[in-house]
């Protein structure tokens, strides 16, 4: 595994995302780990754990309807790759949306899922 390029803006962002993701999802990780030993495999949703959160898949499920080419191109929604918006701005926009342009997902996606989507966006090339 190559070292994280923390001496660049992009690298700092990725580091921020990882740290923030762990901070937010750590309690859930513990809970999920405890549950996994007792709950078995009742349903696909019960099987899922935060480490399974695939931001890219979530993007292709829901976000890609407006943010085209997986977020690499402008369409109904703006291009997201190489966005100069701050992580805080993007997280807030995902949570609250924008009237007449984007739905708010704050009560729909967990913090961990939103962080996974952010990580996916930050990892996009052009």
């Amino acid at each position: 595994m190559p070292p994280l390029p923390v001496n660049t803006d992009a690298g700092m962002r990725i580091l921020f995302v990882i740290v923030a993701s762990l901070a937010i999802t750590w309690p859930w990780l513990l809970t999920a780990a405890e549950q996994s030993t007792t709950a078995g495999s009742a349903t696909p949703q019960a099987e899922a754990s935060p480490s399974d959160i695939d931001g890219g898949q979530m993007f292709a499920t829901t976000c890609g309807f407006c943010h085209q080419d997986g977020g690499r191109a402008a369409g109904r929604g703006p291009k997201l790759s190489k966005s100069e918006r701050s992580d805080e701005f993007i997280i807030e926009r995902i949570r609250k949306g924008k009237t007449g342009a984007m739905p708010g997902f704050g009560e729909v996606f967990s913090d961990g899922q939103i962080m996974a989507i952010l990580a996916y966006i930050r990892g996009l090339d052009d």
Partner: protein
Amino acid sequence: MAFHARYLGGCAAVALAAILTTSPTQAQDAAALNAEAAQNDWATHHGTYKSYHYSGLDQINAGNVKNLEVAWMHFPERSTRGLQSTPLALDGVLYYSGSYSHVYALDGATGKTIWSYTPELDEELVAKQTHSPYNRGIALGQGNLYVGTVDGRLIALNLKTGKPVFDLKLLDSKKVTVGFTGAPLVVKDMVIIGAQGGEWPGRGPIFGVDAKTGQKKWEFFTVAGTEEAMATWGNDSWRTGGGGGWMPGAYDPETNSVWWGTANPAPLYDWSGPDWKKSGARPGDNLYTTSVIALDPDTGKLKFYHQELPHDAWDFDSAVGEFVMINRGDKKLVVHANKSGFVFVYDRSNAKIENVWPLVKNINFVKSIDPKTGELIGRRDLVAGKADSPLCPAIAGGISWNSGAYSPKTQLYYKIGQEWCMDLTVEKTNPILEPMAQLNIGAQFKLVAPPDGPARGHLDARDPVTGVKKWEVNYKAPPLASVLATAGNLVFVPDAEGVVHAYNAESGQELWSRNNGTGHNAGIISYMAGGKQYIAVPAGWGSLVADEFVALYGEPYKSMTKNTGALIVFALR
């Protein structure tokens, strides 16, 4: 014999009683609704049940249209996502809806407000919805006006006062996310409305509600609504199937059938490849998605259907497209346009295929469709990963929901076609149901120009049965508003840049135009008030397809105002 005599005598008495108790207005309404042409009124979304979007008025005609000018305007409040509604007119009063299901009743001659109604919507829910808060139309009947809401309600208002008659919750929109954006359809004593859907993992119901009492009478699931249909969804995928019937259909009184078009299944793009009957996200035909269905309006029972695209893997719903009911010789036909760019012609008695013809040039999701059977030939069923070449048409369709028009005078069908494709990468996804349903797309995509030129649109004047083209007008960007034909030998097209065009219905020659200042994605109608003919069209930009135009075309869409709009009404000076 005695029984028959008594029976016939009884029938005569009932008929006489019906004649005596039916007001002249009601009788006239039924005849007007079943006519080919809308005359003084525009009483239902598609003009009349025959769905021609054709006005029999000819005060405004090819000879004097150059004198058409603005008579009055109306500015609705909170036009988030512009205006997408088709107005209605009855007895000289114009009714229309705006975003958030605001409803206005205006004097048709002066524009003076008679009443307005603002429903209190669940704004927290609206903020979580993708397709909101626009509204595409209303219905009239039983002395009421009916409008759906994005938070899952059907509201009836007294036509004279605007006061609520009933407010019925039909969908748990907090759970299924979708609500109602399309116009209802009133048939006899029933008001019928279809839910949004397609992309959302639901079952897309269509509802029948008692138009007087507001009591729900029936609910038809466009996904697995029968045992036969349930068997066409492998792995219990019907539970998250999509469907919906988000635009109003039409009514054929001869067979007592409501024709309705249904939306695509979810996810939009499947990864099954050619093995779609057995594998992928939703193995099987996925009935009754991307179908035209005929329902008994009294019971909601399915009478017959045709699935235009079995196992639709391209998001080409049948929810778009008006049901143009025409007769050719002894054949009673209905013409219905599918989002794929193909136009289907059916026998009106049983939905058997009479012909299928393409309106647009850039189609590669199939090689063709058999015009005798409707079978898809050379399907392009994708697998996970990047498609080797763009898919045509793009997700916005070769045809969108904006209606075309048919003139019984010229016997031509005037319809907007869209030429564009898209790069596509199919990705495996899982439906999200908790805490509320979310879009299920199954792909990344990007709209691109088609192989034969720039992304563009065109108005075609064609024979509706054979598809033979008489003339065509091209546009840099597809017009996203409905088309109006009139007995004045005119065809009106409100375009995307904001210009309303009037063409000679025989030749396509432009005779008049007027810039309304913002793009159109609504319906245009004509009506009579105080003995004068008017043309009414809402202007106001901002639909989901419209939102593609900045990336595709740049200006004027980049600078075009959004979340605003006005109703513009024209008359001869």
